[in-house]
């Protein structure tokens, strides 16, 4: 513990002094690195502060309070690109300072029809807007719910990505020798429904999981086959790994664990009625509970979504999605559920709405994203105002509003966490 404190202090000192040095010398440093070594340096420094809008008996009032510096170094050459992107963070809520490596990778084209990217990287595919079916790359839900920049919803993967491009179709294969888990709500800074206790919990019960930490045994494969036919983008997906959030419970140890998951699906996206339409479907094969008889492991699911987005007026866009999670082997699930446990629905329906309005030469962006589940009777609203004061300075304010009839549904469990935040960022 003392050692961790020392490291935190050390990182914090580095953070403050680097921020200071960068802020004073950014442009000089940028030019020198580029002229001498051909290395591009960019990044930002930001402060962000947010509070809960109601009392949460299990968490602090402050939902976010941090200073962050991101440095992004890249070297571009004929043979490829090396990239390093990392954050130094001073976090007052968790009372720690830490460094976070977000990207460290080498991208190159070994063959005319082949691209490769090796190392820590951010990965995304699929067609959903803030809904993910075949994108089984890690997410950071904590960052998303406390109001960090959207960039932080995507957690990095340590992986090798190989892409092959043929006339007939393209194929991407992502291999991670070690499972990359998502950051889930575990009680450290967001309260949640704890099914073991049968009540909401937070810092009084921080969830622990059994890490998947064996290289090459706890590995993941993700694959995509894609093709663009006359403006319609088609995708076929496969995944072999584990549930990205720990969907299994080890009752003896009171720990969560990551059951095996096999997933496959398809998507289509194209122009439709003057806008963009998309469809996606996926089958989640929960290999550790195929017959649905283990109440402590999440059942298999079919997930599907349909979306449509279009411009409603100048610089005003609207988007709508319908999403469905359909639990398989529902009867078995219900009959094996321990007495007294609230049963989940067989079908979870979610509707989302996105409205984005750009004003003042697109320097002011008003946006609203909402999730609403008519089956769970809960929802989550994300209003946000972002203003670019200059090309360097930007301010933003927003909220994460959770509501629900019950305290044990997906969004309803977070209702004590409803928060508002504001941030200021200087980019260089």
């Amino acid at each position, binding site marked *: 513990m003392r050692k961790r404190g020392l490291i935190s202090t050390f990182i914090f000192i580095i953070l403050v002094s680097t921020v200071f040095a960068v802020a004073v010398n950014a442009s000089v440093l940028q030019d020198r690195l580029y002229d001498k070594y051909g290395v591009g340096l960019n990044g930002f420094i930001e402060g962000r502060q947010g509070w809960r809008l109601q009392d949460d008996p299990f968490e602090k009032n402050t939902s976010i309070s941090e200073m962050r510096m991101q440095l992004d170094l890249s070297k571009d050459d004929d043979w490829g690109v090396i990239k390093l992107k990392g954050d130094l963070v001073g976090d007052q809520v968790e009372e720690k300072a830490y460094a976070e490596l977000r990207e460290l990778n080498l991208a190159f084209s070994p063959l005319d029809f082949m691209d490769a990217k090796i190392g820590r990287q951010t990965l995304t595919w699929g067609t959903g807007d803030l809904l993910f079916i075949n994108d089984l790359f890690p997410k950071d839900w904590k960052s998303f719910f406390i109001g960090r920049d959207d960039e932080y919803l995507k957690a990095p993967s340590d992986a090798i990505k190989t892409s092959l491009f043929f006339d007939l179709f393209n194929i991407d294969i992502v291999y991670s020798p070690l499972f990359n888990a998502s950051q889930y709500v575990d009680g450290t800074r967001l309260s949640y429904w704890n099914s073991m206790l049968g009540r909401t919990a937070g810092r009084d019960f921080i969830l622990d999981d059994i890490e998947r930490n064996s290289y090459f045994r706890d590995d993941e494969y993700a694959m995509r086959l894609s093709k663009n036919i006359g403006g319609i983008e088609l995708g076929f997906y496969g995944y072999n790994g584990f549930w990205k959030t720990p969907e299994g419970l080890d009752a003896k140890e009171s720990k969560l664990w990551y059951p095996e998951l096999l997933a496959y699906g398809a998507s289509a996206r194209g122009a439709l009625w003057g806008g963009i339409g998309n469809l996606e479907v996926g089958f989640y094969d929960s290999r550790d509970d195929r017959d649905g008889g283990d109440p402590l492991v999440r059942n298999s699911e079919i997930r599907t979504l349909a979306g449509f*987005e279009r411009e409603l007026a100048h610089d005003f866009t609207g988007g709508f999605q319908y999403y469905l999670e359909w639990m398989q082997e529902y009867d078995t699930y219900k009959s094996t559920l321990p007495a007294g446990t609230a049963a989940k629905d067989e079908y979870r329906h979610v509707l989302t709405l996105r409205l984005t309005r750009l004003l003042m030469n697109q320097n002011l962006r008003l946006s609203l994203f909402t999730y609403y589940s008519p089956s769970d009777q809960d929802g989550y609203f994300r209003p946000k105002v972002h203003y670019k004061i200059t090309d360097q300075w930007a301010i933003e304010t927003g909220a994460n509003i959770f509501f629900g009839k019950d305290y044990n549904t997906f969004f309803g469990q977070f209702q004590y966490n409803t928060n508002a935040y504001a941030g200021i960022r200087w980019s260089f």
Partner: protein
Amino acid sequence: MKRSAMLVIGLLSVFLTVSLQAAEAPTVDEIIDRANLAAYYAGDDGRAEVMMTITDAQGRTRKRDFVILRHDVADGGQQKFYVYFKKPSDVRKMVFMVHKYIDQDDDRWLYLPALDLVKRIAASDKRTSFVGSHFLYEDVSGRSVKEDIHELVETTADYYVLKNTPKDPAGVEFSYYTAWVDKQNFMLVKAEYHDKDGRKYREVESLEIKNVQGFPTVVKARVLDLASGGETVSVFKNIKYNIGLKDQIFTERYLRRPPREVRK
């Protein structure tokens, strides 16, 4: 014999006069087609570095630096554009790609590198500001010549002056625009847009035209917003035509991994 010779000479001279007149005064459609080709289809492909300075009514400026690649599928027809942003920092390495069609809505994509996200963008409204500047999407990729009724209202010593009235007035914010086309090289030198009350509210002007590899090329352009008082000036540098851009650059592969042609 003599009379028939006279007739032939007479007919010939009539033909000659007619064809000479045709050479001197092309039809409106010819002017429009040639102006469209000169402005948007020079060479089979092209590359340019663009420096935009956006000034608002209060005099505050913002910069946008990007590299633009263009590939013509057919002259006067389908085209592909690839825009790679360099500045400012918050849009750096973002890519905007357009597949432009003549008889259907364009396909547009945006690549956000921080999320590794390839986003498809709805493209029904082409008269929206391009990256917050006073240039509109249509100024960048060209307004289809089929969308307006064109009239030659004046021929001056240097210019053809054309009045262009939209066939679908509800779909645009102007009632008509007047365009000055250079008689020598068919470059659009100036366009003035008039609103529904007939007031001039917008002006697009080619401030400097240079010859690049034999193609007359706008190297400096300006849009004035007369209604609100702002303006955007674009300066084009390192322009090159016919560099042999491969069609596959304009696909998802190169959104995620920008080609050498833009990274330098």
